């Protein structure tokens, strides 16, 4: 079962990569898939830990309505619990801004 989950995660990630390659400009969804999806899609370790801490409704970042850009920037640069930090070489500020903007509008809005 575990192996199947990992394959599923990889498949989702790869679909994200393909989307990124096809787009002329990097869009938030594709960047999020490439940079964050392996941990923060449905079967990822980040999603699992968020569910344990905050409950199922808060686990998938793309479905959250409460995320704000400064908080997303902070966690990416400082890490959280078992999540390692991202340097500006691995995740440039420009990419992080696009991802933060995407996550602040991807979930349901009031």
């Amino acid at each position: 079962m575990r192996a199947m989950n990992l394959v599923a995660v990889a498949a989702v990630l790869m679909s994200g990569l393909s989307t990124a390659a096809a787009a002329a400009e990097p869009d938030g969804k594709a960047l999020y898939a490439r940079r964050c999806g392996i941990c923060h899609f449905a079967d990822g370790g980040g999603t699992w830990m968020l569910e344990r801490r905050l409950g199922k409704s808060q686990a998938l970042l793309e479905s959250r309505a409460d995320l704000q850009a400064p908080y997303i920037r902070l966690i990416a640069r400082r890490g959280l619990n078992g999540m390692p930090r991202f340097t500006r070489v691995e995740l440039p500020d420009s990419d992080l801004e696009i991802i933060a903007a995407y996550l602040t509008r991807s979930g349901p809005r009031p």
Partner: protein
Amino acid sequence: MRLILPPGMKAAAFDRARQALRRVVGAQWVLDTDEDRETYIDPYAVGTGAAHAPSGAVAPASVEELQAVLRVANEFRLPLWPISRGKNLGYGGASPRMPGTMVLDLGRLNRILEVDEKLGYCVVEPGVGFFELHEHLTKNRIAMEVGIPGNGWGSVLGNALERGFSFRGDHSESICGLEVVLPGGELMRTGMGAMKNGVTWATARHGFGPSWDQAFVQSNFGVVTKMGLWLHPTPEEVITLRVALDQPDDIGWYMDALAPLRLRGVVNGNVQLTTYMMTVIDSTQRADWYQGRDSLPDSVIARIRAERGLGWWNGTVRVAGYADVNEGNLKRVQAALSKHSGREYPFTRTLSAQTPSRGPTVGPLKVANWYGGRGGHMSFSPVVPAVGSAVVAQFQRTRARYIEHGIDYSSTWYLNGRTVTNINLLLTNMDDADLTARGDRLFHALVKDAAAAGYGEYRTHLSYMDEVADTFSYNDHALRRFNERVKDAIDPNGILAPGRNGIWPAAWRKERGKV
């Protein structure tokens, strides 16, 4: 994190060096804000990470920029710590050994330069990750595979330089041809690459005279900017046996049964055997099973095993290649195992034409969450002979130490033909000072025990590099003296990775042992 200067370096000299580096790579690629420094701290450090805090990072975009960076470092005596992607998690991450060292981040050198399907090799730069190489192979339908470690987030080149491994064995053994910038800035290629037009650089292991590829593995003699790496042909069929062993000491007969088959190539991948831990981390944490401060009692381990249907040891044996050849090899494996256990083991068959190979994952990193809080992990990894009695003795000695220090035993054994590499996880919660201190004491005890038995570690965390290097003490540390004579000859200012794997240049030698 506040600025920590290299030992003995004046602030004014450091500022001049930073200015010079900005002129080389552009201001935005000298990363030296407090937040930048924080991002290069080992996320799984023993303690706060301050013992290995960098003064910043510099990220060149080309070999030419890298050469210029090294010239600046020599001019100002600024120590640099090269990283590929900085994902050496469990061994120090992106952090340098000596505080104040500036990280030389090679993540912007990220091209896949060549993939040859017919001859089975690739040439990559440091910033190429396993995800990118796997994607390239898959997208271009190249029937070749790369050995992928448990943490697939890292660099292909960097992992091989650390002697990372997978079921395909030690990845450094697949290195064939390097391009290296020496500490003074000179560009060199090894093996056949040393010719002006060397065609067999990534296919012939040796050139003319000494072979130097391995001298740049786990060392601080140069900055590797390109690597030839042999790929593995995708097998027609993969047979995977799933094995569960009921008793702790069953590991002894198991290794004795499979080592001869591994040596003869009947089993053509490392045999892996692991405790319950790598299964239960998928969906649970320690608190779900046990609240005590001591090592998990046998009764709890028994409950975990019963609920998850696990053996004390769990593992896989991989038989891969042409289907008709596999058939004979499978019979030999089953016969060798059933001779001891009286049973045959379940297996699956996968045809590569129908099922693509599994790509990189970061799933095993979940293990950092075991104790909760700011989780982390390190590994204690001695190399033991592939002899059952030796394996059992090392296992019993190690587990007794874990119990003595009140840490949960978690261990994986990788059987090569002649040796078994034993990766013992030391899981921690950095918010729990007592647990972290016990883990540190446990590590010291394990190094000492293994050395007394004549077993060295294949790789270790920054904080224990001097201690492990010290166990390689034949003839009053003759090897260390040799390494440091080489170091001083090629890096007289000692600017490149001081202290890496216990090799200290004269300029910083007094820092040995300080953590």
